[in-house]
C-alpha cells in the first residue's frame, strides 16, 4: 500500500472519527453535566437531599459504567435504529458513544463539584441565593478547571470507544484499521493509523491542559 493509497483512507477515517467524537462529546456534556450535578445535590446533606432520586440516578450510572462498551454497542442496536433509522455509519454511532460516555462523565462531574468548598455554598445561601443561583454562580465556575479536565478525559475515552464502534458498522479510523490493517495485513497502514490516533489524543490533551492552566492562573486556592 503506497502513501497515495493510504492518504485518502486516513483522512476520511480521521474526519469520520472526529465527527463521531465531537457530536457524541456534545451529547455527553449535555447529558452528563446535569446528572453529575443532580448526584451531588440529591446526596445526603446536599441542597436537594433526596435519597430516592440519588439512589436511582446512581444505579443507572453504575449500570452504564459496568457494561463493557462493546456489549453496550450491540445491546443498543434496536435503540439506535429507533432514533437514527439505522445502526450503521458515523451518525448512528453517536447514540451508543454518548450513552456509553454519559455515566463516566457524570461521575467525573460529581467528583469535580464535590470538591467545591461548602463554605462558598453557605456564603451564597446567606446572601439569599437560590439553588439554581448556587449551581450557576458557585458550583460550576468554581469547579470549572476540574470540569475541563473531565471533558478532556471523556473526549479521549470517546476516541477509544469510536475505534471499537468502527468494528461494529461505524466508520472512522477504527473501521479502517480493522479492514486494512487487520483483515489485509497492511502493517504500514496499521502503523499510520496508530500515529494519527496518537496525534489526535495528544492534541486533545494539550488543548485541555492549556485551558485548565489558563483558568488556574486566575487564582488557585479557594480560601
Amino acid at each position, binding site marked *: 500500500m503506497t502513501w497515495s493509497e493510504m492518504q485518502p483512507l486516513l483522512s476520511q477515517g480521521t474526519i469520520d472519527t472526529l465527527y463521531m467524537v465531537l457530536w457524541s462529546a456534545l451529547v455527553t456534556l449535555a447529558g452528563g453535566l446535569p446528572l453529575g450535578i443532580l448526584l451531588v445535590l440529591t446526596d445526603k446533606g446536599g441542597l436537594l437531599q433526596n435519597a430516592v432520586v440519588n439512589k436511582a440516578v446512581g444505579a443507572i450510572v453504575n449500570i452504564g459504567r459496568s457494561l463493557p462498551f462493546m456489549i453496550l454497542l450491540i445491546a443498543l442496536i434496536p435503540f439506535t435504529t429507533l432514533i437514527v433509522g439505522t445502526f450503521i455509519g458515523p451518525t448512528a454511532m453517536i447514540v451508543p458513544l454518548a450513552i456509553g460516555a454519559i455515566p463516566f462523565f457524570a461521575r467525573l462531574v460529581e467528583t469535580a463539584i464535590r470538591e467545591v468548598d461548602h463554605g462558598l455554598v453557605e456564603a451564597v445561601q446567606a446572601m439569599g441565593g437560590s439553588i439554581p443561583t448556587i449551581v450557576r454562580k458557585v458550583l460550576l465556575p468554581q469547579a*470549572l478547571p476540574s470540569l475541563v479536565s473531565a471533558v478532556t478525559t471523556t473526549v479521549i475515552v470517546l476516541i477509544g470507544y469510536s475505534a471499537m464502534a468502527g468494528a461494529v458498522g461505524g466508520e472512522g479510523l477504527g473501521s479502517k484499521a480493522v479492514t486494512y490493517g487487520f483483515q489485509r495485513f497492511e502493517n504500514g497502514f496499521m502503523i499510520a493509523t496508530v500515529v494519527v490516533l496518537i496525534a489526535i489524543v495528544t492534541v486533545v490533551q494539550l488543548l485541555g491542559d492549556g485551558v485548565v492552566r489558563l483558568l488556574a492562573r486566575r487564582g488557585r486556592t479557594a480560601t
Partner: protein
Amino acid sequence: METPVITTTGLTKIYRSAQSRGREVTALDGVDLHVREGEVFGVVGQSGAGKSSLIRCVNLLERPTAGTVTVDGQDLTALAGRGRRAGKELRRARSSIGMVFQHFNLLSSRTVRDNVELPLEILGVAGQERTRRALELLDLVGLADKAKAYPAQLSGGQKQRVGIARALAGNPKVLLSDEATSALDPETTRSILQLLRDLNRQLGLTVLLITHEMEVVKTICDSAALMRKGRIVESGTVGELLATPGSQLAQELFPVGGTASGPGRTVLDVTFLGAAATQPVISQLARTYNIDISILGAAMDTVGGRQIGRMRIELPGAYEDNVVPIGFLREQGLQAEIVDDADTGADAAATVPAQSPAPVKEDAK
C-alpha cells in the same frame, strides 16, 4: 439602643446522627437572645458551646429544632416553612442580613469586585449600578485599588475586608460575624475589629459576632453573652456584666488572681468603671484608714472607649474589721466584692483555667 433587632426565644437545636439511632447532640438548649439596634453584641464560649449553631440559626442556615428567630421585626422561623429548601421570602430576608465568615468564603474564580457584586446580582441590581456600588463598598473597606485582583492575591486581612464589603452589599441592618478574626494574626485582627467598629458607628449597623477570643469582646463589644453547653449563662452590657458580683464574663474579661497571704485577711475584688478608674482611690483608702493594702492582681483596659479595671486587693484583718473601708470604696462608686477564701484558691483557678497565679496580668501594662 432600645428596640431589639435580633431576638431569639427558646432557640433549640438538636442534631440527630443518622448512623447511631437515638444519639442526640443538643447544640442549643433554649437560647433567649436580645440584640439591640446599633450595638455590637459578642457571644463568647469555648468550642462546642453552641456559638456557631446559634449564629447560623439566626439567618436560618441551620434550621432550629424549636424556638423562634426574629430579625428586624420579621419572624424568620415563620418564613422558613417546613421544607429543607429556603423559600423566596426567607431568601429575601437573608439578603438583608450580612454575614462574614472565619475562612472568608470568597469565590476564587471571581475578582474582588465581582465577589462584592455577587449579592447584588442575586438581588437583581443592574450591571452599571452594581459596579458602582461594589467600588463604593471596596472604597469603604479601604480596598479600592484591589478591585481587579483575585482573592488568591490578597492577604488574610484583605480577604476579610472583601468579605465585609460583600456582606454590606445588600444594605443590611444586621451583620453576623462567624469568628471573622479567628484566622487572622493579632494585628490584622485589630484592624478588622476597628473596621467593624467604624461601620457600626457610621452606618448604625448592628453586629452580632461570635468568638472564642475575649480580646474581641474587650475591643469592640457593647454587650456580651457567655455560652456554655448550648445555654447562655450570662448576658448583658459590658458595664452591667462588670457590675455583676461573681460574673464569669467579667472575670474572664479582666482576670485577676492571687490568694490571701495568710489567715485573718480580707480579699476584695474591686471593679473600676469610667470616671472612678482615674481616681487615686487605693491611696486614699490607705491614707484615710491607715491600712496597708496589698495588690494581689490587677487588669486594666479600655472597653468601648471607657477605662475599666479590676483589681484584687488584700486588707489586713477579717471582714468584720474592714466593713468601713469597704463601705468607703463603694461610696467612691466602685464595685467591691468579697472573695471567699475558698474562691481565691481552687475555685478561681477552676473558672479561669488559662490563668497563671502571677499577680499582675500583662493587660495591666
